[in-house]
């Protein structure tokens, strides 16, 4: 278009000039940009209080809304290879009869309080009678001054025609899962394992080795077995080497069946440190149980699903022995028979387990799709990461805004008589900049963390429960030392408490955001525990407020001895990092 008509060319040039005039005014371009930016900042600053409240409000309301099914969607199977409930099962009444005979023997052993060694020897012999290579494994954990000992029994059924590089574990613990209540023997679970071992080895379709493990105790036995299997070293554990090994374990399921019959099958899935198994596995099981076994599936044993989920995941405690598999990158869950007057028993359980194992056997790769982040609100409903993660993140963002706001404010002081020399800004004449005692604030934060570490260290002593009141007193008094730093405050520098509050808020916000993808429930609990208290804390040491904070920070020493004890046990035996993190982090509000 070199010969375009002149009028058109002129108008085009005019438009260009106009445009240029708009984007490149007479004044300096940078100046305009800065002005625009400052206008935006000002607007943001004006609305910041409202924004903060809004973030907190929406965040907390969202947390409350998580259990509602409308927020989630129905479950589905993502991995095509799984093909759940597509096989004919051959588990039959003869196998149920076998399981019943095993149960008779086990009940006899249970009635006369047989020792671990006797029980494991029985299981081993029964495995061998089925033609499987089997062995036992002794182990000893030293927790404090007490020792936990036991004997595991296990058998390996090599897959025909395959290299045996991959394995599936089917396990049951001697003691069924319990939450502080009386312990109960998992006799039917163990007899189901024995009958399954005898039955499953008779088929040639297995592409993966099947490993049957009957672990002693509740969690300790499986922890020892898995540790030996994977060669992980644990200082307080002495366990025998395993005589038989198989390949890499991809999937595992454990059976928890104690009463005569069951109406539903429950799923427990939370693992150590809040790790979850791939959801495909649970979804497959749910469908198999419904269509192959005719047994409805519930989450856990009944209602209050999300609260229980947070209760397991937050502290990072496993909700069953399956949880011990998760650190080794093994997807596992527990099948829990919900006690009832009927109608189901070994027949339904066997078929469901057989079909579930066939589904696991179909896998060509590890389960790897994104199905590791979810909250099951029901056996068939779940929240995706996108529909629950923002709740904690919004609170965290609110805290961050609040912290940064305080940080900015702490650098300025409103002076009655504006002096132009000190002021750097010509517009806000009333504001005078002042120094922030960052070092003092950081020292206090560091000191509280060290205090937290010391408290945790002293809890590892044997008689910590007698020490608890003393520890509590120490924790209550020590922060007052920080007052010494506060007293040296004068108008040229900002108060230490303000800087401390700003840094604490930012730090807590960062921790919540980071933890939210590792262990959402813990992030949720931290957001609840730290969000509002940190945000509304004030430097005035009112008599009511201080004890309230101390109680929040260290009250667990006095009032929750059992929970503390179990968290400690989890740390020592299972390496759950909730206890140390809680001890170190929760002392932070001071």
């Amino acid at each position, binding site marked *: 278009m070199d010969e375009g008509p002149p009028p058109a060319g002129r108008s085009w040039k005019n438009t260009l000039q106009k445009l240029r005039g708009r984007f490149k005014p007479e004044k300096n371009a940078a100046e305009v940009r800065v002005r625009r930016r400052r206008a935006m900042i000002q607007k*943001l600053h004006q609305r910041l209080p409202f924004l903060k409240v809004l973030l907190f409000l929406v965040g907390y309301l969202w947390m409350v809304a998580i259990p509602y099914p409308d927020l989630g969607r129905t479950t589905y199977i993502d991995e095509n290879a799984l093909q759940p409930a597509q096989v004919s099962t051959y588990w039959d009444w003869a196998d149920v009869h076998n399981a019943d005979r095993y149960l008779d023997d086990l009940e006899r052993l249970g009635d006369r309080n047989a020792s671990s060694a006797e029980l494991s020897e029985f299981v081993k012999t029964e495995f061998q009678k089925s033609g499987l290579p089997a062995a036992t494994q002794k182990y000893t954990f030293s927790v404090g001054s007490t020792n936990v000992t036991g004997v595991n029994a296990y058998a390996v059924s090599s897959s025909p025609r395959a290299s045996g590089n991959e394995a599936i574990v089917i396990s049951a613990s001697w003691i069924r899962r319990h939450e502080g209540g009386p312990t109960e023997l998992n006799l039917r679970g163990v007899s189901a394992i024995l009958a399954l071992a005898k039955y499953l080895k008779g088929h040639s379709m297995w592409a993966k080795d099947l490993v049957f493990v009957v672990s002693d105790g509740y969690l300790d036995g499986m922890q020892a077995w898995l540790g030996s299997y994977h060669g992980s070293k644990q200082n307080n554990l002495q366990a025998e080497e395993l005589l038989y090994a198989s390949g890499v374990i991809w999937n595992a399921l454990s059976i928890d069946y104690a009463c005569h019959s069951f109406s539903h099958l429950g799923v427990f899935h939370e693992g150590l440190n809040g790790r979850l198994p791939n959801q495909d596995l649970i979804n497959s099981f749910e469908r198999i149980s419904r269509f192959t076994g005719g047994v409805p599936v519930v989450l856990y044993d009944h209602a209050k699903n999300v609260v229980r989920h947070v209760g397991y995941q937050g502290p990072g405690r496993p909700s069953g022995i399956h949880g011990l598999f998760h650190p080794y990158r093994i997807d596992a869950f527990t099948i829990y028979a919900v006690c009832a007057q009927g109608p189901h028993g070994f027949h339904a359980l066997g078929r469901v387990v057989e079909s579930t194992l066939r589904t696991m056997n179909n896998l060509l790769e590890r389960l790897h799709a994104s199905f590791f982040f979810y909250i099951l609100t029901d056996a068939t409903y779940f929240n995706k990461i996108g529909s629950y993660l923002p709740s904690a993140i919004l609170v965290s963002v609110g805290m961050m805004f609040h912290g940064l706001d305080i940080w*900015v404010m702490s650098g300025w002081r409103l002076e009655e008589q504006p002096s132009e020399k000190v002021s750097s800004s010509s517009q806000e004449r009333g504001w005078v900049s002042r120094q922030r005692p960052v070092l003092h604030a950081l020292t206090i934060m560091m000191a509280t963390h060290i205090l937290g570490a010391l408290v945790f260290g002293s809890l590892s002593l044997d008689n910590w429960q007698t020490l608890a009141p003393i520890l509590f007193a120490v924790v209550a008094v020590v922060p007052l030392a920080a007052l010494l730093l506060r007293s040296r405050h004068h108008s040229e520098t900002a108060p230490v408490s303000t800087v401390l509050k700003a840094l604490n808020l930012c730090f807590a916000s960062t921790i919540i955001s980071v933890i939210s993808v590792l262990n959402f429930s813990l992030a949720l609990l931290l957001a609840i525990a730290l969000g509002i208290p940190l945000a509304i804390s004030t430097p005035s040491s009112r008599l009511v407020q201080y004890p309230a904070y101390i109680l929040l920070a260290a009250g667990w020493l006095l009032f929750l001895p059992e929970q503390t004890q179990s968290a400690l046990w989890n740390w020592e035996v299972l390496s759950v990092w909730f206890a140390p993190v809680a001890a170190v982090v929760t002392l932070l509000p001071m």
Partner: protein
Amino acid sequence: MTMTSNLMLFSLLLLNVVSLCFAEEFFDEKLTVRPLKDGKVASTLAFTTILKNASPRSPQKLHQDDDSQQYTLFPLALGQIIREYGVTEMHLSLNAGKWNYDAWGQPVEPGVGTGAELWAWIGDGALESVDVRWKGLRNALAGLFCSSLGQLDDLRTTSPVDVFLPEGSLPSSDTQQLRHASHPSENVCTENLTPFIKLLPCKSSAGLASLLNPHKLFDANWHGMGDEGVEVRLSFQVVSDPLRSPLATKQDWSFSTLFDRTVERSCPAARSSVVEVSLPRNSPYSISPEPTAAEEAQARYNVQAMAKPVDVSMKWLHEFQRLNAQQNESPATPLSIQRTLKEWSQSRGELSAAITNHGAYPVQAIYLETMPWIVQFYLHTLTATVDGEAQPSAISNLSYIPAMPHSRPTTFHVLLTIPAKSTLRLSMDVTKAFLRYTEHPPDAQRGWDLPPAIIYPLGLDSQPSRMYTPTLLVDLATPDFSMPYNVIIFTCTLVAFIFGNIFNFLTRKFVVVSLRDLPKERND
């Protein structure tokens, strides 16, 4: 059921007149059935074609036109490959399953490592280098046997001459080089059996080869194929389990239960056709039909002379004692091996091998690892313990060719001295490679199969035989190739961007400093 095919050919073929060869070809077939102590039954079918007065093609003459080849019994397809690449001796095995030495003893054919294994002695001195011909050989065999032998590339090729000694005599005129490679994730199935059967003179329509019924063979616990020569020996090993069903109580077997076939007619091309059955020593049994000849522990049948159809069967009087088999019987081989890779992180692991000597005398054995570069050894962490106590003197004559990333595999070769009635445990830290993203296989999350280690006992008996450990699976750090993680990455980037902006808004103050005005202010 497992299938191994060992193809070994040495000193092949016709340099002379065609008619000479006609007179000198023989075909023998033999089936060996052994009841095993854990209740399973191992059968080995061996088909041998002997070609007399033949010698391998001289490497110096490879570039010249070859003499024409014409055989009556000898498989032409195989002969052409051997002569094309001037191969002196070659062994190919394709196996599925893992051979359980403790329960099954030493196999008739030693090459039982899981997956595909190919090794060949190739004469040097031709215009084309040994490596080029090795590449041609494996590609030709891949085509012949419908298997992915082409993947036995430089990443897997080693030359461990102490363990893979030639089974025939090598011609002294040329220097000979060994090439060995194994591919553990090769699956063996019907598509490999069909070309195998095509190499036999009677195919599967007559003689013992008619027992090669893929439906039953590929349902067994282990199987294998093989061949050797001036002879070409094709063999097929199977381990079947008559006790697999929980209802079965006796170890009874017959051709019909093992193969779901009987021998309907004999192969007229065969010089001999023999069935050998190992007889149990200490439990009452009956065998039918009456053997042609019976020695103390072996019954022999001459299939050609027997009334057809031939269906050899063996019945036990007593039920099989599974518990006794598990608890009381000592292992069937003097050595037991267990090799494990313990992985506790994405980048490190520990490779350990435990070798137990059940005998009353110390045993010396060569331990050989031919490891792809993806798992690299920390040789300084190598420790040897005997029954739990450190004993550095148990290992000697160590030779080690380190791996080269993205190309050469490791060759680790050590002489072990295992004291009587004790367990030697070798362990070594390993590091796992970080792959380029294009190097991951399509099923990236499965992990990588590692080839078996090989134990080569020295001086146990007159004919030492290699023992293969089971293969291993290693998990390397794998990126998640699925879509949702990309979404997470995008979202995180967006959040970081927004956060950065807001952080700036909240903590920084932007001021206009006019440089022109600045001196004025100073003047004031």
